[in-house]
């Protein structure tokens, strides 16, 4: 019952979004509690990356509301959004480190832009965060000199340098070998335990999802199929969820007329 007392960190209500005329997300409702690790899972084209973009405030939804830390980002002023962003950290799929700067300068960038700390303090803070992600001593290197896993960890260091309350990960284990991917999972768990962050992870890696998740949200074709604990997801009898979990190809029933009209283009 203690769970219910926790504050809600993210609340999405009836979110509908379009890409051009195409509807991508259709009536998404989602809540994430403070200190929780929420995994957003789904096949490609399910809309999970789109959902993340909107959670980050990178798009304007057709309708619905997105509340982060109690503030509705769909109608915040630019200045309020600017303040809110200081409490958010994002680790992008490819790291998205600025390639013209060293690792150390990348990690320092948010401090340099948002604080008036002196150079020495920023150096120390950047090194501390790099130690957290096991990249101590790499601050002088350029992003191009690092491996994929290291770039992702450096991106995490940059994301946590302002000690954010919310942390988002986009496909943290994509393109990594199993060992490095497991290390990143450990890192995510540690961030939550030590810094009490609320963490949202978008992924399609089942193993890592089951390992770190408090709750899992399964997206399919722009709808939420289920949003529940790992156990409940595993025990779900929903056909689409089971086919995602068991990696069985989806056997859609083909509508003969539609199929024919698609082929002929009539």
């Amino acid at each position, binding site marked *: 019952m203690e769970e219910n007392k926790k504050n809600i960190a993210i609340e999405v209500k009836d979110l509908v979004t379009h890409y051009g005329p195409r509807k991508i997300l259709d009536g998404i409702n989602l809540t994430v509690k403070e200190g929780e690790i929420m995994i957003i899972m789904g096949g490609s084209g399910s809309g999970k990356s789109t959902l993340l973009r909107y959670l*980050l*405030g*990178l798009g304007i939804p057709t309708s619905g509301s997105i509340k982060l830390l109690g503030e509705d980002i769909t109608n915040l002023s630019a*200045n309020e*959004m*600017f303040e809110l*962003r*200081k409490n*958010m950290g*994002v680790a*992008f*799929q*490819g790291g*998205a*480190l*600025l*390639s*013209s700067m060293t690792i150390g300068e990348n990690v320092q*960038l*948010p401090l340099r*832009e*948002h604080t008036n700390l002196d150079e020495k303090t920023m150096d120390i803070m950047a090194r501390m965060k790099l130690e957290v992600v096991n990249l101590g001593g790499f601050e002088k290197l350029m992003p191009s000199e690092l491996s994929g896993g290291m770039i992702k960890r450096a*991106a995490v260091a*940059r994301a946590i340098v302002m000690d954010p309350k919310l942390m988002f990960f986009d496909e943290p284990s994509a393109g990594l070998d199993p060992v490095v991917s497991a290390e990143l999972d450990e890192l995510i768990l540690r961030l939550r335990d030590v810094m009490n962050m609320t963490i949202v992870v978008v992924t399609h890696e089942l193993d890592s999802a089951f390992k770190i998740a408090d709750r899992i949200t399964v997206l399919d074709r722009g709808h939420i199929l289920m949003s529940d604990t790992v156990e409940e997801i595993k025990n779900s009898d929903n056909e689409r969820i089971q086919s995602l979990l068991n990696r069985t190809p989806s056997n859609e029933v083909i509508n003969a007329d539609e199929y024919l009209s698609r082929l002929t283009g009539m």
Partner: protein
Amino acid sequence: MPEYIAHRFLNVVEKIGISTVKFIEAVGYYFALLIESVAWIIAGSFYKQPVRIPSIFSQMMTIGIAACPIVFILSFSIGVMLAIQMIYNLKTFGAESQVVVGVALSVTREFAPLITGILIAGRTGSALAAKLGTMQVNQEIDALRVMGINPIRYLVSPALLAMLIMVPALTFFSDIAGLLGGALYTGIEIGLSFSAYIDRTMAALMVGDVMQGLFKSLVFALIITLVGASSGFSVTGGAEGVGKATTRSVVLSISFIVIADMIFTYFLNR
């Protein structure tokens, strides 16, 4: 078949309509970009998001100082070339000595700003488009936005300010290099001494002639930055998209520069 022809005609009209709308959209985007970058330069500090002075200076180094040798070489050659052409033409009237006035006016009013603008469009405009395009593809622009760093303030405003300072400065440098080229060839060809050349140039030139060139170069700086930045931001589709945007920015800015040059020359000489 009149119906067929009508159909073709409508197709053409539709295409013209679509490209007109696209063009107006692009011009609107340039102005929005201009207003936003200028707004950040003026008001950024009030929102605790200033345009950083060091990044302006580092841009000025790459745009301006690093371009000096090539600007000098090109402008010097233009000066020599103008002197050759004018001496050849003026010989017909036996007025070779008037070459000094000709070179001085054409270099300061026309060739120096134009050659500098075209060079910077190829050198800096394309680099700006490629940089922003690559950043867009690698999600670096998104990363900046989610860190609360406005990409226009962080990337476009310093470049704009640096261009507005450095392109006129380079144009002035180009003026001097062009006149030097003219002096060198005139000295060899008709034996006019260097100091006499300088004296006559000074007598022929008015402040307005130089200012006209510098004013045009300011306009070129605006064109190059806005076209380069908007081409970069509009990149979609990976490395190929970056290549296309780079080419597009060079072709567009050079075309706009030449057209703007014509328009401004007309109005400035009324």
